[in-house]
């Protein structure tokens, strides 16, 4: 289809990435942290104390509301600091790498044939956190039954590492992980991207961002609803599940891309989850002030540590505050009501070309929950609107409006 390949108005600069044929170095940073995702609240029961030595994959804490779900150590390490907020809410748990540390072995017996045991294993090994449940984009509840599971073998974010590269040479793990995932749902197991292994149903995606994000794919092929949640995870996570089932050990690294204008050269590396962004970029940045984002330049946010689902680190030169901004311009920017978004071809493309863009923007701006649900907005999350926010450059961020509306719908449904 022509509109899927070409659209007037929006050309997204693609950061250069190293040749995928080159060998990818493994770089474990000295520090790493376990932390909640942005907007997520984790009330935890600690299993370790500060200064304890932990093995890679060892459970560090369990959720108070769901003791089956554990957060595990991303590397063999010594616990450096535990920051909790009132109510035992996790702020961060910082780890120092210990060379030559042990790996925690999980008991995987019988997990492959028994969905209940598989579920318990995933929750105990921390891989449960890699799964995202739509609507609302949270970690799934311990007993949640998904209507479908989508595995993303494609990522069209600018500068994202190719998921096919992440699972290259791990075909067996991936197939095993997919078979295991298929046992968790009564519905279909979908695989978006090239070369879907056996039990999964292949789904073709367009090449233009955001057509390779889980949100637009689900919106088109299997919309999520409040009664029928849909899970999504990346192909690498599915392969990790397979590896865990095969060996009993949690894979220690993931493939990430380090890009951005503040770098001397972009890089593909394998590092641990929750890696220290300064450690990853220190040897690569250009001199001068810069900001480090976990995630792409579109949907990432300033962070110290790699986010739990992020596969990208972006280093951007720090934006210079314009020195003498004219008072008139400043006053206009602070108008009570921001300039509205005009429907253009750029906006259409930024929303994937499939959605009625103007109607969605209107529903979001008006806080119209019913309108959003009618348009299939329950399949979407903040990252799916990040490109539209980038394109329109508007002060009223669509992603923020969507989050507020989703939270309200969740509260009305009694799921908050």
């Amino acid at each position, binding site marked *: 289809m022509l509109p899927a390949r070409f659209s007037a*108005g929006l050309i997204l600069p693609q950061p250069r990435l190293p040749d995928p044929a080159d060998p990818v170095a493994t770089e474990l940073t000295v520090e790493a942290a376990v932390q909640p995702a942005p907007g997520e609240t984790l009330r935890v029961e600690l299993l370790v104390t500060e200064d304890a030595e932990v093995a890679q994959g060892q459970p560090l804490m369990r959720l108070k509301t769901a003791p089956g779900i554990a957060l595990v150590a991303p590397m063999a390490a010594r616990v450096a600091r535990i920051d909790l907020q009132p109510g035992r809410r996790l702020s961060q748990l910082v780890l120092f790498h210990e060379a030559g540390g042990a790996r925690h072995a999980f008991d995987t017996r019988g997990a492959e044939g028994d969905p209940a045991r598989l579920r318990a294993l995933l929750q105990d090994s921390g891989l449960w956190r890699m799964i995202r449940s739509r609507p609302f984009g949270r970690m799934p509840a311990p007993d949640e039954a998904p209507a479908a599971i989508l595995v993303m073998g494609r990522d069209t974010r600018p500068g994202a590492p190719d998921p096919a590269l992440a699972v290259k040479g791990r075909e067996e793990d991936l197939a095993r992980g997919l078979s295991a995932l298929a046992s968790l749902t009564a519905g279909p197991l979908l695989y978006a991207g090239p070369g879907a292994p056996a039990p999964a149903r292949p789904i073709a995606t367009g090449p233009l961002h955001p057509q390779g994000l889980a949100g637009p794919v689900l919106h088109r092929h299997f919309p999520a609803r409040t009664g029928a949640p849909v899970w999504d995870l990346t192909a690498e996570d599915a392969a990790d599940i397979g590896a865990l089932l095969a060996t009993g050990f949690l894979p220690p690294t993931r493939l990430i891309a380090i890009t951005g204008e503040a770098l001397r050269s972009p890089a593909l590396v394998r590092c641990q989850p929750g890696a220290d962004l300064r450690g990853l970029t220190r040897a690569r940045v250009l001199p001068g002030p810069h900001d480090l984002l976990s995630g792409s330049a579109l949907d990432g946010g300033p962070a110290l540590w790699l986010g739990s689902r992020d596969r990208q680190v*972006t280093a951007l030169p720090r934006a210079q505050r314009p020195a003498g901004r004219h008072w008139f311009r400043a006053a*206009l920017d602070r*108008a009570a009501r921001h300039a509205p978004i*005009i429907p253009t*071809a*750029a906006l259409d493309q930024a929303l994937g070309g499939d959605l009625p863009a103007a*109607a969605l923007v209107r529903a979001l701006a008006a806080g119209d929950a019913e309108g959003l649900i009618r348009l*299939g907005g329950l399949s979407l999350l903040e990252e799916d609107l990040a490109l539209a926010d980038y394109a*329109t450059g508007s002060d009223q961020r669509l992603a923020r409006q969507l989050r507020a509306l989703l939270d309200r719908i969740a509260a009305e449904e009694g799921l908050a």
Partner: protein
Amino acid sequence: MKQGLWDRETVALLLLAALLPMLLAWLWDGGLTAAGRLGFTLVVSGFWHLAFMLIRAQPPSFAGVLTALAVAMLAPEDLSLLQLILGISFGSVIAELVFGGWGRNVLNPATVTLAFLGFGFPAAPWPDLSLPIGWAAIPALALGVLFGVMALRLVLGAVLALALCLWAGVPLAPLLPVAGIVLALLVSDPVASASTKLGGWLNGALYGLLLALFAAHWQGAAPVQMAVSAALLASLAAPLLDEIALALWILRRRMRHG
């Protein structure tokens, strides 16, 4: 973290850039009179944007220039200054600024101004636009579509409908230059036209069909008058067409996904 540039003012400026071929052709044709007329409409339109900025803290927009341009080109001739001021004020304020500025309006303020002037002062003769301006509408529409600020489906819908009616023997030929000019100036305004895919096709086709209807049955009307009336009706129907397109889209999704 990074910001693109498709905010409201960029879109307005790109629309303006797309209309430049027509503007230049019109100025070349009309000379000093045309330039004076444009200056006057710019001042009146700018005054109201300024007034709303000072009183309502509503940021002004370059869309005011678009309104002024369309009114200067299409408004009836021989109107007194007071009549022109009255028309532009009505169009700008009632059709655009009271809704919160460009982007929140329902109808194109220039369309409303022209309809107001046409119905209010029917004795004033409508302008006779020369052929080069009509030809200039083609690059204007092409640029708008290329920039992505005008909808290709809307333009194609209108062209298809006009071609079909022409083929069916409706005496449309003398209307075509004006049809193109009004299509570029008024109908393909991204805010006041239908925004859905099917809605865009229908909106363009409706404009073409209305024009054909007027050409066949409206005795004694000037080409600009017919085109502006068709633009007004097509623009009024745009929300309805969008609603139809959305309902069909949702129905199709429901059938596919249950």
